[in-house]
């Protein structure tokens, strides 16, 4: 890859602490709710207390009478919708229109001088409902039972079938077959900063400025323009500091339209920030899948064919622009075989509406569930055949000589290190030693388990929750003083793009990091791009930065060659200074060049434009680039209390070229912690009437520091054929970790023959499954 660097890489690959940190550590960063605008009004919503009901009447007279209340809106006041989306034929109203379809759906919007007053006013609004029977079970919903969520459409809004040629014969003639059902409950991203938006007319231009912690600033601008029938050039979206997003903040939400429309109607700035209860009731949920699976294999554990019925409960509407139900299932169906060489596949997908919160994106969409299914299936085969779990994986892994490999669903794994990462993980973990320890421990009544999880991670895809823009963009300007400003279309939320993109540019331009500033998230400044999501920012944003940097560098080389009276090929750059290769005494600084480019333009070498500005867009050579790796976990399960303690955790990760290993490792740590949550803690629970019972962080359990294990990470580097050899890596750690933890728990419980096929696994589940017979060893 070295030829891709205009100069020897000093920065790409280095463990550089982030330039973002200082403002965050000092509490000076501005998140959405920190923005202070004069005369800012605040919005609050009256939300449906029912999962399904007809709205009979809305009486807001008492609310209007509260001092400080400025407006009370219903759908009639803002008759806008999020349009039908992909195969889903149903649009989603900004405020409920005649019917409510999930508990928490916004019915009335109140605008007041403060949020305190707005909430008082919400209490004073009286909405009369006739409750209807809620649709809560996805399998019944497939048969339109107990009824349709939307009169106008059947509950199944996405159905697809796929089968490899010769599947049935291969399946029928296989020596062994097993049936299993995997399930994950609803979970959600639960960023610590809730969602929010501010809309304020710009007093200078009359345009509308929208502040929103979105992952896709340009897409949000386009959506608002289209849905609210506004002119796109009269809208500006600014993304402030974002306190976590994880896919959840990629969607366009009804509240966003309500706030912008309210600001238009009231001609005054309006803000809405979700409180935590609202977050649980209105942020997109995720997962909530069932996989009915049959697997056929031979006596060595070689998997011959997999048959999977994938189901997802999509909630009341298909989240715009990305239905989590379709995402979770259709992508899962394409990579359900993971890094294993499985010839035959048959999948059926059914996504249904229900009277629950819409399902959208959460980090690793498809992956946490599919990996859990895929690895659970391998473990069940190992158990059935009394073979070692690692051995069965060796038998099935795609071998190096098979790469590039097209899987049974037709996805091309461009490159990878499947066998290598697996063997490295076993070595890092000291697998054989843990197996021996497990034996010894069992003899004294202690139950350890080892979980293994091999994963593939499709990254840098043309389409993701961030939208369907298959490229990313970067503008670079060398300022008249010789410092560098760059803009990208990304929408980061803690991934450190200001640092990593600067690293890429610094190497291209031969300047030092402190002379580069990277900006993003302002549609007035950043070139139009896709945003952040689907593990695309590193490979696509990095590619755009590299391409723009190189283009600028080519121009700078011409300047330097001209000024130093040397050939372009002989120019080398270091620390913002060009010299003739080998002759350090003959040099010219970037500042000197910039002065000519902007101020002494008659000296510009012929053929070059005035100024030093370029904008480049990078489209990767492939529609998808695969990262891979292996997670291995050791847990202890206390059979009498159900307590699970993670004793050791190893990650071997291969995401191609690392721009900044420190940041890559941080991403892995966070994903594994979320995986611990997914496997053991996090569950959105609905009762039989469709009420969400888990609406605070007291009830929806996030992993805290004592529960998250220390991780050991090893990097492998199999570069992609894209820019810099970089692959995406934001999601692999959450894709792999639930399977590793769950596998370890199941392995620990194997003496009881208990195996959990449903996540999360709570202590109570463990104790009750083991039965009263496992009385406490006193």
């Amino acid at each position, binding site marked *: 890859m070295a030829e891709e660097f205009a100069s020897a890489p000093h920065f790409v690959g280095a463990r550089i602490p982030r330039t973002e940190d200082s403002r965050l550590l000092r509490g000076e960063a501005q998140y959405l709710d920190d923005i202070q605008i004069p005369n800012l009004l605040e919005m609050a919503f009256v939300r449906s207390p029912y999962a399904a009901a007809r709205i009979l009447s809305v009486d807001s007279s008492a609310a209007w009478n509260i001092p400080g209340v400025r407006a009370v809106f219903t759908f009639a006041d803002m008759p806008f919708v999020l349009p039908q989306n992909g195969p889903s034929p149903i649009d989603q109203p900004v405020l409920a229109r005649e019917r409510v379809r999930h508990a928490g759906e916004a019915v009335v919007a109140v605008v007041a001088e403060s949020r305190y007053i707005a909430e008082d006013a919400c209490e004073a609004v009286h909405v009369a409902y006739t409750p209807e029977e809620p649709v809560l079970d996805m399998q019944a919903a497939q048969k339109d039972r107990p009824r349709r969520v939307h009169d106008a459409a059947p509950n199944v809004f996405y159905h697809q079938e796929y089968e490899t040629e010769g599947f049935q014969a291969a399946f029928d003639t296989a020596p062994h077959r097993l049936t299993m059902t995997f399930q994950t409950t609803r979970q959600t991203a639960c960023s610590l900063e809730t969602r929010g938006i501010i809309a304020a007319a710009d007093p200078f231009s009359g345009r509308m400025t929208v502040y929103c912690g979105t992952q896709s600033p340009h897409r949000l601008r386009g959506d608002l323009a289209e849905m609210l029938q506004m002119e796109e050039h009269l809208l500006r979206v600014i993304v402030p500091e974002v306190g976590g997003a994880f896919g959840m903040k990629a969607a366009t939400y009804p509240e966003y339209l309500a706030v912008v429309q309210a600001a238009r109607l009231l001609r005054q700035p309006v803000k809405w920030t979700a409180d935590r209860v609202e977050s649980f009731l209105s942020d997109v949920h995720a997962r909530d899948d069932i996989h009915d699976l049959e697997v056929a294999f031979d006596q060595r554990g070689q998997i011959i064919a997999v048959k999977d019925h994938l189901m997802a409960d999509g909630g009341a509407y298909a989240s715009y622009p990305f239905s989590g139900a379709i995402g979770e299932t259709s992508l899962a169906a394409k990579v359900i075989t993971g890094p294993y060489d499985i010839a035959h596949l048959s999948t059926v997908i059914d996504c249904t509406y229900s009277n629950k919160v819409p399902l959208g994106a959460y980090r690793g969409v498809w992956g946490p569930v599919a990996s859990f299914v895929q690895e659970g299936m391998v473990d069940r085969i190992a158990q059935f055949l009394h073979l070692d779990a690692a051995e069965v994986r060796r038998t099935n892994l795609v071998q190096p000589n098979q790469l590039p490999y097209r899987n049974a669903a037709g996805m091309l794994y461009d490159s990878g290190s499947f066998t290598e990462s697996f063997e490295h993980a076993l070595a890092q973990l000291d697998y054989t030693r843990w197996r021996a320890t497990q034996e010894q421990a069992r003899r004294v009544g202690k139950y350890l388990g080892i979980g293994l999880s091999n994963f593939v991670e499709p990254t840098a895809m043309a389409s993701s929750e961030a939208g369907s823009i298959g490229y990313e963009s970067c503008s670079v300007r060398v300022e008249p003083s010789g410092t560098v400003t760059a803009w990208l279309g990304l929408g980061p939320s803690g991934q450190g793009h200001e640092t990593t993109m600067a690293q890429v540019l610094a190497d291209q331009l031969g300047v030092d990091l402190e002379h580069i500033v990277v900006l993003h998230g302002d549609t007035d400044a950043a070139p139009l791009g896709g945003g952040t999501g689907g593990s695309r920012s590193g490979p696509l944003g990095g590619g755009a930065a590299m391409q723009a940097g190189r283009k600028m560098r080519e121009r700078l080389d011409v300047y330097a060659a001209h000024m130093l009276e040397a050939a372009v090929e002989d120019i080398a750059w270091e620390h913002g200074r060009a010299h003739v290769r080998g002759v350090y005494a003959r040099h010219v600084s970037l500042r000197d060049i910039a002065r000519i480019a902007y101020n002494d333009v008659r000296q510009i070498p012929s053929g070059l434009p005035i100024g030093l500005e370029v904008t480049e867009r990078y489209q990767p050579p492939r529609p998808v680039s695969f990262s891979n790796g292996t997670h291995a976990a050791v847990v202890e399960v206390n059979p009498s209390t159900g307590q699970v303690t993670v004793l050791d955790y190893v990650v071997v990760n291969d995401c191609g070229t690392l721009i900044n290993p420190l940041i890559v490792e941080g991403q892995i740590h966070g994903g594994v912690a979320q995986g611990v949550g997914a496997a053991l803690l996090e569950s959105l629970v609905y009762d039989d009437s469709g009420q969400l019972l888990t609406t*605070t962080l007291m009830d929806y359990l996030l992993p805290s520091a004592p529960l*998250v294990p220390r991780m050991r990470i090893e990097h492998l580097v199999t570069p992609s054929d894209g820019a810099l050899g970089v692959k995406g890596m934001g999601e692999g750690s959450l894709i792999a970790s639930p399977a590793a933890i769950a596998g370890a728990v199941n392995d620990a419980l194997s003496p009881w023959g208990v195996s959990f096929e449903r996540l999360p696994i709570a202590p109570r589940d463990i104790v009750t499954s083991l039965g009263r017979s496992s009385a406490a060893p006193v």
Partner: protein
Amino acid sequence: MNEVPVTLWVNGQTYAVRVSPRKLLSDVIREDIGLTGTHVGCEHGVCGACTVWVDDRPTRSCLMFAIQAEGHAVTTIEALAQHGQLNVLQQALHEEHGLQCGFCTPGIVMTMEAYLHEHPNPTVDDIRDALSGNLCRCTGYQNIVAGVQKAARVFAQNSSGATSAAGNESTHLSEGGREYV
């Protein structure tokens, strides 16, 4: 609204504001005083993002009415970096990449800074336990722990010249604290 005068002492300065008694300390600090480094994450006393010091003790400002803070010294994240220079803990968190989106970071700094003053020589398990009232959704805590360890070592070196015993984070032990070999 029944607003009342409230006098607060925040970061060594006196602020006289008129607020409703129901206004939370977190909101008064953020909106009336304009110090927005204190964040509100869960509003329920779980996430710890809103942690400030009340009389030098880490306290959740979202579970306290501003009026209750009258007569007490309130310290927020903005007071920690003197003249814009990161303090030892902030610097260590930066070097160890102990933050990502940064939303939980001010609360974590306030909690752990106070903790290190009282417990200069913590073990890794102590640190994790002290962090249990602060949630982070991005980092998996590993680099936060590393940053706190590093800060503890710097404190120890600064105060005695000796190296702190806060060694590398060991493998987590089982409930009973017994290691299997």
